[in-house]
């Protein structure tokens, strides 16, 4: 399952231009390894892959805990929070599934658009949602929910940090590869 071509192009442009400013790169004469054509370095991040792997295993248990706790506290919630929490649970499930798939394919196959999509989904969508679940006391946060949300928040944070580092390395590498292709 591939991302649509328009989405891939936009994410790739976003990574190159917005996230990492290519004009501030150092001249290539300072890097010895950039003179090697078709650099064979492995760009996949081990830390990011470990975080994604354990997150994938943890996600079903997070979902079961959250669904059971929501079912238990549902009668005690105000009407608007009933709707909000069910929507948040559905959204987080969908986003998590797409996010983990994009993270796996982007990291293992060293694809910049997928990894950028994974990073954006983590930072812009999943992170605010998990903070809402952790810090909004009005939704009656139960102790088990605190436990599982803390673990998921740690996963999202580590993926944001390691994903950013991996994305930066990949963008620099693909940039140097395109630059060297001009001399082939």
């Amino acid at each position, binding site marked *: 399952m591939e991302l649509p071509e328009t989405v891939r192009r936009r994410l790739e442009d976003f990574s190159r231009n917005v996230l990492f400013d290519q004009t501030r790169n150092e001249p290539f004469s300072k890097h010895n390894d950039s003179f090697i054509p078709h650099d064979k370095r492995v760009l996949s991040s081990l830390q990011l892959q470990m975080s994604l792997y*354990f997150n994938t295993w943890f996600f079903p248990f997070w979902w079961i805990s959250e669904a059971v706790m929501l079912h238990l506290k549902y009668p005690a919630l105000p009407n608007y929070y009933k709707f909000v929490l069910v929507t948040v649970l559905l959204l987080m499930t969908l986003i998590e599934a797409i996010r983990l798939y994009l993270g796996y394919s982007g990291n293992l196959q060293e694809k910049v658009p997928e990894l950028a999509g994974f990073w954006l989904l983590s930072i812009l969508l999943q992170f605010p949602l998990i903070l809402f679940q952790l810090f909004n006391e009005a939704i009656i946060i139960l102790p088990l929910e605190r436990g599982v949300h803390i673990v998921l928040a740690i996963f999202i944070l580590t993926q944001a940090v390691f994903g950013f580092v991996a994305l930066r390395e990949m963008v620099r590498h693909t940039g140097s590869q395109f630059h060297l292709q001009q001399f082939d």
Partner: protein
Amino acid sequence: MSAISSLVPARFLTITAHLVIVITIFWSRVRKKWFIFNLISYDTQYSSSLLIRYFLPLLEVCFPNRQLSPALAVHCSASVSLSFFVFEKWECWTYWVIFATCRSVCLCVVANKCVISQIVYI
């Protein structure tokens, strides 16, 4: 090799289950009754227990040992015991018994492994 590789997520899940149930227990309202040692102040007990309870499992995940099965068995037994502790409403002092047993088994295994590896390298 496939048997060992399937132990890796099992080990992670048992450590996480242990961590989650400890967070659950200590975030519930009755946690102040559980510090029964009158010789040590409440603040000291709370801060030292935070360090031990939360950071040691995280370190275990980040820096894994090769001996997976003892850690797996210990964390699994700790999680099951703590679940019984919650659902069967055991006495407060039993938590510290479970904690001391599991931590001492973990430390013994790690210490034995270090000693054996030192002997092998000599």
